[in-house]
Structures are given as C-alpha cells and as structure tokens.
C-alpha cells in the first residue's frame, strides 16, 4: 500500500480524479449525446474488465460473454418495469442480477471444463446465441420476455427519492440524467478495477495464471482446476450481470437485438486489442473501441459532405472496414495488444541492468 503514498502517484491519482469529474461537463458542451457515449464507453470498460477475468486471467476464450450481460439486463427489466408490474429498487435487483448471471456462468462453465481454446470458443458462442434466441422467443406460451418487441418503460435507478433520470441539483450543481449515470458508472468501474487489480496479485489470480500457462502442471501442484475455472466463469458472468442491470436502467428499454454475437466479439476485441490480462490495456481497448465508432459517425459524414459534396461511404460500413484493418494492424505490429503487461519491460530493464 505504500506506493499509494508516494507523492508522484498521489498527484497522478488526483489528476485522473479531476479529469474524471470534469469529463461529463466537458462532454455536455457537445450535447447530452456525448455524455451518453461516454457512459457507454465506461459500461464497456466494465464489461471488458469482467471478461478479462475469464479470458485474460484464466485464459478461457469466451465468445458468449454478452449472454450474461443479457441475463443481467433482463433480470432488471423484468423486476423493475410495468411488464410484470414489479418495481423493486435498484440496489435489490443488482445483486439478484449478478447472482442470476453467476448461476448462468456456472451453467455454461460446468459442461465446458474439459474444453480449451477454439473448442471452448465455439461452445460459448453457441451459448450466447441460445440465450439471445430464448429471449427472442419466450413470449409464448407464457409471455416472459415480450419477444422481439423487448421490454419498455423500465424504471430508472433511484435511491429513495433521488432519481437518476431528469435534471436535478446536487450540491448546487445542475446534473442531467446521463451525467448522474456517468458518476454511477465511474463508481462501478472503479470498483471493478480494484477487484481486478486485487485478484491479479492474489493466490486465486496466480492459480488462474498457472492454469492459463500449463493446466497439467497446475493440477500437479495441487490446483483444483475445475473449481477455479468455474470461479472465473462465475465472477466474469456476475460482472456481466451487473453491467446488464445498469444498461437496462439507463436505457429504459431492452430487446434481444442488443445482445447479438457482434457485441460479444466487440468486447473480446477490446480485451485482446488493449492487451489481454493487463488492466490498463483492457481499459484503453474498451474506451477506444467504444468511442471511435461514434467519432466516425459524427465526423465522417460531415467530412465527406465538405470534401465531395455527397456521401460516398456510409459511416457504418466504414466503421467495420476501419475496425477490421485496425485489428489486422494490431495483430501484425503489436500482437500482445496496444498496451501489454509490463513483462516485456521487465525483461528489457533486466538486460540493461545486466549490461552495466
């Protein structure tokens, strides 16, 4: 803990805190839409860090992560909307959503324990699709999910009388709905970052890393690989569930369409592009991949109009083009991700020390 006390880190933390507090107000100058974009970026940071536990720490390639997000989102939607006439408070549903997602995590994890790599990826991909298709079709014979129409009029987050939708005064500052969600999301993101950091350097984190490196050797030194893999699935899924709940409350509307395969792939891409298993890298990946498409959406259209006087490529297809190209370039030039863990740095400094 002593590293927190050193003045340089303290200054850095103060700087980051100030930037995080100022950010929603700066973004609001460009309109509330930008605050919403910011919120989604943080939500993706949260999701990516949840997936990082499964993929980055334990090395289990999970292509169905969005299913847990969906489970969390629907848990919230069903328990806090006119659909069933239930209006439970946010802080009650959030743990329930986490628990339900956790249950699904174990459900997916247990039959796939012996699978690794590509095989695991295919099974998890299938699982993700199964959940989405269930959500799409569970409107008959009993209407549970309302099918493709989705669930509307979901309650906003509220603590007592303080509601997160609409503008309100907090400590003399006027905060819009998205700005309030921003601070809630930042708090949640900091929570998940701390958990990630603490897990990484713990007995459990080391055991996960050992399983990722060599499962047989891990077994031979007494690591219960079955339980630890299930634990990774369960924890990752719980975070997905929490993110889903917040998403549901923030949007006020969920439908199966939000939980397609491409979402799973995007979150995995955030983890891989940023630097698998390295927390700052994963955060960078999530922020980049969630903000850049929006920048394109707002930037490319007007740019084309100004240059050519007409739209040549629509921003949506350009987005996939640039995304694909970026992935290829990263894999070619920075295969460990944009901001990989300091192992390599450690090696380099080692060499320098050896040379002296």
């Amino acid at each position: 803990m002593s590293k927190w006390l050193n003045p340089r880190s303290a200054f850095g933390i103060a700087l980051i805190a100030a930037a995080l507090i100022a950010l929603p107000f700066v973004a609001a100058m460009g309109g509330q839409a930008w605050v919403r974009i910011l919120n989604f970026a943080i939500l993706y940071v949260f999701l990516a860090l949840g997936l990082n536990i499964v993929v980055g720490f334990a090395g289990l390639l999970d292509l169905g992560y969005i299913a847990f997000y969906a489970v969390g989102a629907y848990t919230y939607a069903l328990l806090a909307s006119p659909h069933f006439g239930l209006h439970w408070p946010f802080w009650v549903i959030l743990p329930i959503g986490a628990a339900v997602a956790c249950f699904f995590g174990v459900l997916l994890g247990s039959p796939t324990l012996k699978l690794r790599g590509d095989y695991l990826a295919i099974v998890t991909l299938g699982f993700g699709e199964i959940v989405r298709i269930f959500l799409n079709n569970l409107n008959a014979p009993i209407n549970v999910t309302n099918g493709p129409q989705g669930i509307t009029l979901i309650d906003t987050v509220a603590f007592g009388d303080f509601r997160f939708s609409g503008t309100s005064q907090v400590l003399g500052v006027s905060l819009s709905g998205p700005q309030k969600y921003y601070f809630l999301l930042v708090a949640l993101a900091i929570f998940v970052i701390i958990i990630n950091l603490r897990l990484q350097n713990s007995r459990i984190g080391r055991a996960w890393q050992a399983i990722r490196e060599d499962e047989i050797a891990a077994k031979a030194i007494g690591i219960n690989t079955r339980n630890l893999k299930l634990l990774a699935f369960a924890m990752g899924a719980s975070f997905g569930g929490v993110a889903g709940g917040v998403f549901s409350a923030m949007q006020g509307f969920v439908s199966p369409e939000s939980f397609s395969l491409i979402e799973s792939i995007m979150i995995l891409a955030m983890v891989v592009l940023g630097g698998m298993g390295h927390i700052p890298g994963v955060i960078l990946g999530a922020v980049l991949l969630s903000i850049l498409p929006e920048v394109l959406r707002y930037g490319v259209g007007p740019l084309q109009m100004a240059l050519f006087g007409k739209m040549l490529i629509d921003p949506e297809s350009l987005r996939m083009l640039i995304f694909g190209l970026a992935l290829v370039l990263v894999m070619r030039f920075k295969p460990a991700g944009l901001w990989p863990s300091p192992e390599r740095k450690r090696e380099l400094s080692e060499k320098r020390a050896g040379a002296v």
Partner: protein
Amino acid sequence: MAEVLLAAKAVAKHFGGVKALRDVSLSIREGEIYGLIGPNGAGKTTFFNCMTGLYIPDGGGFDFAGAPLKADAPHQAAERGIARTFQNIRLFANMTALENVMVGRHVRTAAGVLGAMFQNRATRAEEAAIRQRAEDLLHYVRIEDRADDLAKNLSYGDQRRLEIARALATEPKLLCLDEPAAGMNATETEELRDLIEGIRRDGTTILLIEHDVKLVMGLCDRVAVLDYGALVIEDVPAVVQKDQRVIEAYLGA
C-alpha cells in the same frame, strides 16, 4: 525398518493393446531415496502419471501414508503430499521464478476471492508468508538471484531447480523427480546430487526416475527396475547391479 510411505499394489495400465504397466507392485519407505530405472518405454513415466493422478490405472492402486490414493484426482495427490517434476520441464513460462514457487504454495494456503477483494489482515499475512516461503525456497535451490526473471528465460539447469523448488513449495512427503539430470553436464549433475541429498536430509522421501545409472546407483538407497511395463527387481543398488536380468534388460544393452 522404516514405515512404508507409498505402496503400489499390482498397478496396471494399458493404452489400447500396449501394456504400459503390468501389475507393478513396489513400496517406498519413509526417508529413503528410491530409484526407478528401466530402458526407454519401460513404463516409468506412466507409473508416475498413475501415481500423481494424471492417468487412471486400469488395475490395482496406491496406498499413500496409510490410506488409499484416489485415482483421477491430481490436485488431491498434491494435497496428500505427493509432488512431482516433469521429464520435459513444465514451468509456468510467462510467470517469474518467484511467482512459479508462489503458485506452489496454493495447496497449503487458503485465501479466497473475498480475501483478495477485501485484503483483510489474514490474507495480507498469508500473502507475506507465501512470498517469504517462496524466497526461502529459491534460496534453498540456489537460484535466488533469478527470482524476478520469467521462468522461460532461465537456463536449463536453473529451470530444473525451479521446478524442484515449486514442487517443494507444496510441502510434499514424497518428491518425485522425473529424469532431473537429463541434459545436464557432469558439474550440474553433481550439484543436483547434492541438492537431492539435502532434500532427503531435510526429511522428504524421494522417488527418482533417471537414466544416469551412475547417479542412481550412487544416490539411491533402493532401486526398482522396470522392463516392458513389468517389475524386474526391487533391491539395494549393489544387488540390482549384479542381477543378470537387469544387465540383460538395461545395463548391458
């Protein structure tokens, strides 16, 4: 006579038509260095894998420290006090030497997810103890100055030592070394021999699979010879060396 620590009782294992182990029975006594030798393909490593739970034997079983060993439960074997190294070194390549040994403490420590999240006093104390023990073990096998290097960057001999340190971190009653001297030069082998004798002096029973006959005969209290999956003889080195069947099967070949 010392207590029997591990007793193999008619252990059999076949892969398809190949009988890798044919009813092998042997017993390892507490405190001894026990050698297991035999030509390539004789079933030595298969025996190891059955014992440590990586393979399920097709017949027979093991008694360890007075109670049967459960088949197909490698992590339980480690918990009961059997640690092993691998013929082709299996370290956690992208973890540091120190981290490799720290992982070895897993089975003797208890901190869970909640402990890691809240960093309570017990967890912090345990973490400090894990680190301390791992540093001591690196010192014990004399690679303490490589503690922060990634395992994959260690020299071959140091990797062997690190694997032994990791196995010792589980506090084994029985340490099984699968060809620890393979690929080592004479000096390194001599150092390894000192290390093994030291480990025995500190109270750990050792099972040694080895090709280096000179090392085995000089180091082991008793030796078993396997050939085509069957036990040929189990006795002190002086007797084994003179046995006609052993000379035919292995030494004379």
